C-alpha cells in the first residue's frame, strides 16, 4: 500500500530523542532512498505523535497510522513491514497499552479520542518548518481576516467575547489586557511571548513552539495589530534548542512571505519579532522579571504599579502573553469569539493543554475542553496508574501548585475550581503520584525547587522558604517535633502574605496543601518516626516484616553491597553494618515486606 503514502511524519521531540537516541530522519531518508521512494514520499518533522512513553514514533500520512521505531537494525525490512501493515484495517504493530487492542489509527486511541484540539490542532499534521503547510491548514487566515476586515477594537472585542484567559497560570482575561495595552499612547509598544516554561514536568509551550511555531507568530502579530505594537519578542529558555530553531526558521519564512516586517499583507501595519533566549532562571517566567531580563539586566520582579501594559519593556506599554494564549488567537479570530466561548465552561472558556506526567500509563500532552474533570484526564486519557500501584495524589500547577487527593478527582478543571481547593491551574502541569510517593518528601522537593529558584530579592521568599525547607528536612530526618507543623504553617502563611511576586506567594502551596490533605503522613513522620510510603530513608528501619515476606530472595539479589543473606526457605537477614540504605531491596520487594 505504498501508493497510498504521501508523507511520513516523524517525532523529533526532546522526549523521543531521550527515550532512544535514534536519528530517525537520517534513518528514514536512507531507507527510503534504498527502497526508491525518496522522491515520492516526503518527510515531515513534527512533535509528539502519541503518548511519549512509546517513542520514537513515525506516522504515515494520510491515514495517520503510527508505528514505533524500536531499533535501527534491519530498518529496511521493518519499514517494508510497516508498508505491508498499512494494508490491514488495523495496525498490528501498535496496540493500546491497557487493553492490548490493536489500533487502526491515531484517532481511535482513548488518549486522543477524548481530547479536543485547538492549540495542538496541527501537531503531527504539518511540518513545523514549512510555512506553506501551515498556510494550507488555514494558517495566517486569522491574521488576514484581522488585518483586512476588522479594526483593532473589533479584534479586541472578539478576544473579549471569547472569554480567553491567560494560559500562563494567573488566568487574567486576555482581551482586557490587550485593551489596556491599546489604551496607553506611548510608542513604540511591545508584544512579548512568554516561552520561559520552567515548571518541573511541564512541556506544553515547548511542544507548541516546536510543532506549530507559526500559530504563535500569528497570534503575536494579531496582538500587535490590536494593541498598536510594532515589535515583538519571544522569550524562550535556552534549554529548548529545537524550539529556538523552529521559531527562527518560522520568523525567517514569515518575513519572506510578508507576514512580518513592513506593510504586512499590504495593510500598512508593521510588525517584527525577535527571539530572546533566556538564561535559565525560573523567576524569569514572571512577567516583570522577564521584561527586565530582555532589557539585559538581572531578572528580578519589579514593583507594580505601573502594570506592564502601561510601562513594561523599556518603560513602554507591553502586552505579554503565554505561548498557548497566542496559539489560541488565530482560531478565535478565524471562527469568532462565540465559537470559542461555546467550548469549556462559563468562566473558563476554550481548551487547556496539560502535560500529563508521573505515574500514569499514557504520559504526554493532553488538550481538553476546560471543565473536564481530573478523573477523565488521569484515568481515561492518561490510562490510569502505571503498574499495580494505587493513585495517591495529583499535583497541579507546577512547584507553586497544590497536591489534591482522590476526593478531588470529580473536580472540573477550571481556573476558579482549583483555587478553591488550594491548587492552581498554573501553566498546566499535571503530575500524578501513586502510593510510592511520600507527601512530605514531595513537599520538600517542591520547596527545594523554589528555594533554588527564588531570585533572592525579598526577605520572606529568600529566607522564609529556606526556613521552611529546614523544617521539612528536619521532619524527613526523623528529628521533627510536634510544634514544627504549626511553625511550618505559620511561616507558609507569612511567605504567602508578604512575598513580592507570584513565585514567593505561591511557593508555600505544596506544603500547605499536603498539610491540609496529608497531615497524617506528617504526623507519622513526627510522632511515630515512620515514613508510610517508605521513601524517607532516615526513617526506615530496614527490617523484614515476617507477615508479608514470602521468602522469595529477590531483595538479596538486588542488594549492591551484599548486605543481605538468605537461604532458601528462610527469611532474609539484613546486616546493618554493611547496609548503605540505598532502598534497592525495598523497591525490589513486591510484597512491601521491608520496613
Amino acid at each position, binding site marked *: 500500500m505504498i501508493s497510498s503514502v504521501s508523507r511520513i511524519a516523524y517525532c523529533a521531540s526532546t522526549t523521543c530523542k531521550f527515550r532512544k537516541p535514534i536519528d530517525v530522519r537520517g534513518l528514514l531518508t536512507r531507507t527510503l532512498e534504498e527502497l526508491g521512494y525518496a522522491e515520492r514520499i516526503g518527510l515531515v518533522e513534527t512533535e509528539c505523535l502519541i503518548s511519549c512513553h512509546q517513542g520514537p514514533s513515525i506516522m504515515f500520512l494520510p491515514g495517520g497510522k503510527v508505528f514505533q521505531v524500536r531499533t535501527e537494525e534491519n530498518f529496511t525490512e521493518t519499514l517494508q513491514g510497516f508498508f505491508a501493515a498499512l494494508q490491514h484495517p488495523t495496525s498490528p504493530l501498535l496496540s493500546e497499552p491497557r487493553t492490548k487492542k490493536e489500533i487502526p489509527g491515531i484517532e481511535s486511541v482513548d488518549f486522543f479520542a477524548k481530547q479536543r484540539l485547538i492549540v495542538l490542532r496541527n501537531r503531527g499534521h504539518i511540518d513545523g518548518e514549512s510555512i506553506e503547510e501551515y498556510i494550507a491548514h488555514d494558517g495566517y487566515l486569522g491574521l488576514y481576516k484581522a488585518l483586512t476586515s476588522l479594526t483593532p477594537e473589533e479584534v479586541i472585542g472578539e478576544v473579549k467575547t471569547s472569554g480567553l484567559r491567560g494560559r500562563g497560570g494567573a488566568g487574567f482575561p486576555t482581551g482586557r489586557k490587550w485593551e489596556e495595552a491599546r489604551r496607553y499612547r506611548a510608542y513604540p509598544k511591545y508584544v512579548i511571548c512568554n516561552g520561559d516554561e520552567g515548571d518541573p514536568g511541564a512541556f506544553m509551550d515547548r511542544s507548541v513552539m516546536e510543532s506549530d511555531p507559526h500559530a504563535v507568530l500569528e497570534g503575536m502579530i494579531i496582538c500587535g495589530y490590536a494593541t498598536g505594537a510594532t515589535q515583538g519578542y519571544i522569550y524562550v529558555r535556552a534549554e529548548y534548542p529545537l524550539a529556538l530553531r523552529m521559531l527562527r526558521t518560522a520568523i525567517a519564512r514569515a518575513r519572506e512571505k510578508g507576514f512580518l516586517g513592513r506593510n504586512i499583507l499590504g495593510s500598512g501595519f508593521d510588525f517584527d519579532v525577535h527571539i530572546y533566549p533566556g538564561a535559565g532562571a525560573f523567576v524569569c517566567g514572571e512577567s516583570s522579571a522577564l521584561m527586565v531580563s530582555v532589557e539585559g539586566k538581572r531578572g528580578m520582579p519589579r*514593583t507594580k504599579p505601573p502594570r506592564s501594559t502601561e510601562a513594561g519593556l523599556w518603560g513602554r506599554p507591553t502586552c505579554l502573553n503565554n505561548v498557548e494564549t497566542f496559539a489560541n488567537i488565530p482560531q478565535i479570530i478565524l471562527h469568532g469569539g462565540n465559537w470559542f466561548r461555546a467550548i469549556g465552561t462559563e468562566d473558563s472558556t476554550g481548551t487547556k493543554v496539560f502535560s500529563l506526567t508521573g505515574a500514569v500509563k499514557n504520559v504526554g500532552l493532553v488538550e481538553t475542553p476546560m471543565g473536564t474533570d481530573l478523573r477523565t484526564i488521569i484515568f481515561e486519557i492518561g490510562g490510569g496508574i502505571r503498574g499495580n500501584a494505587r493513585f495517591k495524589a495529583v499535583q497541579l500547577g507546577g512547584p507553586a501548585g497544590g497536591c489534591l487527593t482522590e476526593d478531588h478527582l470529580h473536580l472540573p478543571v477550571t481556573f476558579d475550581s482549583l483555587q478553591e481547593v488550594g491548587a492552581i491551574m498554573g501553566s498546566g502541569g499535571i503530575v500524578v503520584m501513586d502510593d510510592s510517593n511520600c507527601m512530605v518528601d514531595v513537599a520538600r522537593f517542591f520547596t527545594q525547587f523554589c528555594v533554588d529558584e527564588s531570585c*533572592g*530579592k525579598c526577605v520572606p521568599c529568600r529566607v522564609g*522558604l529556606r526556613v521552611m525547607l529546614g523544617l521539612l528536612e528536619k521532619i524527613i530526618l526523623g528529628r521533627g517535633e510536634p510544634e514544627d507543623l504549626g511553625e511550618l504553617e505559620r511561616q507558609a502563611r507569612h511567605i504567602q502574605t508578604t512575598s513580592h511576586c507570584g513565585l514567593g506567594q505561591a511557593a508555600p502551596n505544596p506544603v500547605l496543601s499536603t498539610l491540609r490533605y496529608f497531615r497524617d503522613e506528617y504526623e507519622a513522620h513526627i510522632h511515630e518516626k515512620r515514613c508510610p510510603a517508605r521513601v524517607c530513608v532516615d526513617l526506615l528501619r530496614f527490617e523484614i516484616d515476617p507477615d508479608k515476606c514470602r521468602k522469595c530472595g529477590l531483595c538479596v539479589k538486588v542488594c549492591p553491597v551484599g548486605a543481605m543473606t538468605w537461604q532458601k526457605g528462610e527469611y532474609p537477614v539484613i546486616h546493618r553494618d554493611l547496609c548503605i540504605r540505598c532502598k534497592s531491596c525495598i523497591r525490589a520487594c513486591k510484597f512491601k515486606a521491608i520496613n
Partner: protein
Amino acid sequence: MYVKLKINGIETTVPKGGTILAAAKAASVYIPTLCHDPRVAPTGACRLCVVEDRRRPGQLIPSCFTPARDGMDIVTDSPVVTAAIREQLKLILINHPLDCPVCDKAGECVLQELVIRYGIVEAPYTLEAPFRPVDRESPLIERDMTRCVLCGRCVRICAELQGKGELEFMRRGYGTYVDTDGSRALDCDFCGLCISACPVGALTDKLFKNTTRPWKLERRETACLHCGLDCRIYLNMEGEILRRVTAPPDKDGAEELLCVRGRFGWRAAAGAVRRPPGPWLRDARGRRDATWEEALDFASRRLAEIAGERGGGAVAVLTADLLTTEEAAVARGFFRTFLGSHDIASLQAAGYRRLMDQLDRMLPSPPPPASQEDLLAADVLLVLGGGAAEWHPVLKPLINRYRQGEGKELIVISSWPDYLFERATLPVAVAPGHLEGFMAELQAALEGREVASGLDASRRGIDVGRLARLVSLLQGQGEIAVLVVPDLYARGDARAALAASLHHRVQRILPLGGQFNSRGALSAGFASPRDFQDILADIEMGRIRSLYLIGEDPLEDFPDPQRVRAALSRLDLLICQAPYATTAAEAAHVFLPTVLPWEKEGSVLAVTGQRRHLRKVMTAPPGARGDGEILEELRRMMGDPPANLPGRVAAVGETGSSGSPAAPPPGSPAATAAGGRGFPEDRTSEANAVGAEAPSPAFPFLLVPVPSLFGDGLVSRQSPELAGLKGGLGVVMNNDDFAALNLKDRETVWVATPYGAAPARVRALARIRPGTALLLHAPGNPEGLSLLRSDVAAVPAAIGRKEAP
C-alpha cells in the same frame, strides 16, 4: 489632583500617584523601612513596610510602592502588621553578625533601630551561613557583606544615580549576595553614594573606620571646597577633629548627592597635609622664617616699589578662587583700584573665567542663577564641550536624574567620550581639534549665515544624521538649557559664542569649570579678561615684574613648567599667599600662609549662581591668616595708593578688550613657545579657534589633556586619598590601538610628545576614536605638564613601552 485617605485614623492627602508611605509621612505616622531610599526607584525587597487596609483585613500591602487610593483606611500597627514585621526582622537577623561593638554603623544602623523598636530578643531560627564576600582591598570603601541585608540600595543607587553599576546581585535565593563582577576590588568613581545608602554596616567609609563612634559626632554644615558647585556638606566633628564628611539630608530625608572629592577629599583640609606654621622670606641669604610683620612689611615695600616704578600694570595676580566673595571684593580693591593692576587670572578656573567674560560681553544680561532643579526642568540639555561631569562630578547623578524624565534629550558635543557623552541621547562626536571650528560653523549655520566650507560635517568627523537631529532639536519647541564646558588648557572661545547666539532660544546658560568661589570672585569684579597665557608672555617680555599668587601655583598647573620656571625667575617679586606650601612657595620671595574657607566666615557664589553664607566651622592653624585680612593689612601699610606715585604707566584699560595686539596663529607651537601676545580680538572666527597639531609618523597619536574626576584644583591636589585614586599620570586609549601596541591594563608606558616624555599608566576604552589618547592627571604633575603646550586642545604624541627618543 490629590488623594484623600486615612492613616491610623488620621486624615491626610497626597498628590495622585503618591505612595502610602508618603501619605504616612505626611501624617507623621512611622512605617519601618529598610530597602526604601527616596533617591532611587522603590523595589519592595525588605517587606517591612507592610500595612493593612481596614476595609480588607488580613491582606498586607507593601506601602513603599503601592499608590495611595481614595478612601483607604490604613492601619500601620495592627497585630497582623506587627507580627509580619517582627517575623520579617527575625528572618533578616538569621546570620546577621552581632558584631555591633566593632561595627562602624552601630548607633546609626537602621536594623539596630528596628530590632530595638520591635523588641526582637529571641532568635528562633538557625541556618547555615551562606557565602558572603568581604572586601578590605578596595580603596576608601570597605565591603563586609556578611552584614548585608540585601536591600539592594547600593546596587540601585550605583546604577540609577551614579550610572556605574559597579555592584550587582550575584547568585540567587538564599545564596544571593552583592558583589562586583568577578569579585574584584572596586574600580569605580568612589562617590560613596553606596555608603550613604547602606542601612547597615556592610558598606563603610574606610577613613572613618574605627576612629570614633557616630554618636560622638557633631555635624557642622558648610560647602565643599573641591569645585564650583559648592555642594552642601556636613563636617562630622568629634570636638575639633574632623572625622568624616557626609551630606546633609535633602527634602525627602535622604542624603544629598556628593562625589568622591567631597566625601573622601577632606583630608586636604584637615589631617593629612602639614600646613605651613608661619610666613617666610627669601632673599640673597636664602629662605628664612619671618614674623607676619616682617613678611608683610617686605611685601608691601617691594610692591610699592614695583608699582611705583613701573605702574600697577607690572603686578599680576593669580587666584585659586578660594576667597570668599567679601575677600574677593577686598582683593579687587587692593589690586585693581589701589595698585592699578589689570591682570587678575586663575589657572584651574581660567576656562570658566574666560567663558563668563565672553558671555558677559555677548549676552544682554548676565546668566541668571540656575539651581539644580532648573537644570532638571529643561527638555533639552545641550552640553558644549567634553568633561562637564569630570569638572563637577555631582553632575553625574544629577544628569542621570534628568535623564529619567520622560522625553528628556541630552546633547553632548565633544571630541572625547566623557561621562555625559556616553549617556547622551544625542552624542555628537567631533574629531579632536575640530570642536571649535565645528561650533563656529554650527553657529553660523544656525544664524543662517553662509559657511565658507558649507557645514561640512564629514570633514569634522561628524555623523550627518546626528547633525540633522541636533539642528532640529535646537530649533524645536523644547525648553533648552546649555552647559558650556571649557577645555583643560585650551581656550575654547567658539562654544561661548555659540551659547550666546542661542540665548533667545535658551532658558539657561551655565558655564562650568569654576572653582570654589570663581563666580563670587567674578561678581566682586576680581577678574580681568587676560589669562595666564597673556601674563606669562608679559613676564617674558619684562612688562610684568611682580606676580602675586593667591593659592594658585603656575608651576603645578600650567603646561610647560620649564618655561614657567624660567619666567618666574625673571620676576622682581613673587609673592605666594596660600594655604599650602606648593612648588611655587619654595621659589617665592615671600610666603604668607592663609586659612581655608572652612576656617573663616563669608559668602560664596556657586557656578549655578546660588549664594550661600558660610560660618567658620574649623579652627585655623595658628600661623595662618585670612586672605582679606592680609590684603587689608598690606594696603594699610602701603599708605598712599601707588597710582599717585610718579612714573605710573597708563593701564591698558579696565576691560582690556580693546587695543590688544593681534593673536598668534592658532595651533602653532612656535608661536605659543614664543609667547602669545595678548588675546584674539575676534574670538569666534575659525582662524582663532583652537586646533590641534596634526599627528606625524613619529607621533602618531593625538593626546588630549582632560579634566579628572578626582579633581585637578589646588585643594583636590593636596588630598592623599584623591591622589591615590588618580595613581599618577594616566593615559586612556582606544581598545584597538591598545591591542595593537600589545599593552596590559594599567601598565606603565612612556608617553612622548615633541615637548617631552613622561611615564603614565595606560587603560583602554572602546569608545575613544582610534588615534586619540586622553591624558589624565597632568595638573600637579610636572612631567605630565611638560608634554603639553598651552592653548592647544591636543598635541601629537607617541605611546609605547620604551622611552621615546
